């Protein structure tokens, strides 16, 4: 794989979908996701793909159409953001409950009110318990790589779950990058077509979405819990396959400086790039800091987080979404639960940042590292949940 293309985050996802021989795309435009389906509709118009492209009247209908298509055995993709994801909320649970391996590009954007079109994680975090596999990319390259892998993870017969590939609105969706892409034939070999027993056959009718009362419903939910446990194994296997093909090593998380770091930042998406940049500078000054970036948020990589934080004295978890009234915010709560289950006594504090697309500068990150180093030294947390960069 030597070809490098200039692609925005949105275009990188669209290009990966183009190479994945998707049977059906049903979508509705919403900023900052629009470019994904816009770019893809051009592939359809130019005859570069054989995909059935359905323009629906809403996101609720878009995902409904995807669910129907997926249940006929088709490979299916859609994309959305913010209010669109919120409007899909009902169908998100139906997609996972009916075990539809749909892949969706989610370009993270703040939720109304007040209305805002810029990047934060409120949309996906608001639907975090919908039973989907959730992946966060740091840049356009990762968005491309994970989208290709997402189809293979979703459609694995031991998984059969929908996958969302998340990128930060505007910061990634609209920024142009050099993206190393595979040749179409390489993708064909990696992905092949979807293998499934599902077909539309009048001779063998099946019932989908039947009523399950208290005597059966719970068992279906238990199956979904198992599917996410299976996904944990499958993701690892597919990462290995992808590494053989591309030389790029993915996993549940990526860490930097963790061998000797005493204080670290754990965060999702593009902010990890800024954090690593700052950490590098601080490490040159002899400060023992590190960065942990989970790629996979669901299934939550408990083992990997516990291992990555082994030598730390303090950890700051950055949340780009607010769980109003909660003791800490979504990502931090998961990290604390993971550590608590493993009897780890690590000082963890939470910082909420960047809501509604508020910029995160290297200096902001530097201050967080400073706080974390102080906690590492004193063993005392002054503020368990901090709100960074908001005016008083």
């Amino acid at each position: 794989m030597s070809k490098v293309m200039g692609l925005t985050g949105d275009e990188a996802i669209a290009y990966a979908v183009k190479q994945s021989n998707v049977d059906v795309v049903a979508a509705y435009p919403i900023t900052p996701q629009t470019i994904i389906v816009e770019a893809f509709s051009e592939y359809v118009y130019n005859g570069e793909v054989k995909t059935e492209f359905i323009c629906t009247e809403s996101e609720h209908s878009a995902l409904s159409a995807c669910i129907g298509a997926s249940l006929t055995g088709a490979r299916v993709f859609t994309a959305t953001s913010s209010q669109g994801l919120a409007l899909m909320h009902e169908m998100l649970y139906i997609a996972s409950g009916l075990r539809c391996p749909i892949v969706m590009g989610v370009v993270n954007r703040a939720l109304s009110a007040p209305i805002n079109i810029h990047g934060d994680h409120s949309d996906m975090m608001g639907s975090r318990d919908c039973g989907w596999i959730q992946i966060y990319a740091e840049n356009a390259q990762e968005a491309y790589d994970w989208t290709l892998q997402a189809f293979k993870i979703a459609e694995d017969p031991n998984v059969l779950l929908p996958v969302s590939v998340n990128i930060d609105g505007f910061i990634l969706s609209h920024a142009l990058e050099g993206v190393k892409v595979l040749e179409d034939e390489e993708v064909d070999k990696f992905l092949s077509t979807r293998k499934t027993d599902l077909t539309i056959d009048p001779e063998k009718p099946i019932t989908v979405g039947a009523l399950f009362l208290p005597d059966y419903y719970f068992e279906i939910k238990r199956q979904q819990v198992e599917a996410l446990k299976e996904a944990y194994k499958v993701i690892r296997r597919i990462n290995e396959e992808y590494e053989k093909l591309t030389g790029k090593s993915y996993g549940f998380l990526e860490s930097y400086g963790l061998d000797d770091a005493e204080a670290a930042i754990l965060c999702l998406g593009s902010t990890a790039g800024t954090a690593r940049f700052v950490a590098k500078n601080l490490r040159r000054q002899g400060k023992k800091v590190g960065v942990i970036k989970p790629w996979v948020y669901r299934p939550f990589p408990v083992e990997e987080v516990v291992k990555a934080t082994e030598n730390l004295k303090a950890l700051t978890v950055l949340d780009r979404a607010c769980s109003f009234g909660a003791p800490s915010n979504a990502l931090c709560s998961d990290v604390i639960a993971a550590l608590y289950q493993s009897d780890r006594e690590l000082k963890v504090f939470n910082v909420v940042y960047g809501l509604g697309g508020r910029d995160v500068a290297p200096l902001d990150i530097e201050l967080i590292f400073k706080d974390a180093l102080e906690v590492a030294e004193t063993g005392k947390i002054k503020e368990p949940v901090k709100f960074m960069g908001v005016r008083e």
Partner: protein
Amino acid sequence: MGEETKPGWKSIPLGGLLLKPGSAMEYKTGDWRAFRPVIDQKKCVNCLLCWIYCPDAAIVRLEKYVNVNYEYCKGCGICANECPVKAISMVEEEK
């Protein structure tokens, strides 16, 4: 509870897909009923309005009159309400 006689999550088809058609027939819903429709077959003019209006398929067509399939009739009373000759009365089920 009887839960132990039902299949566990490992043996139910994924996502609760029902792979065998017509399985609703196995689910006898007649015991939901609080009132049972009783048809006076002497009054019945076989107009089939009850057969049309029944939201289930619990009215059985016979040659000269209709009958009720009590295995599935949930006792909603729509048939009694719609009957133009008042041939159907709703009688409370006794325990």
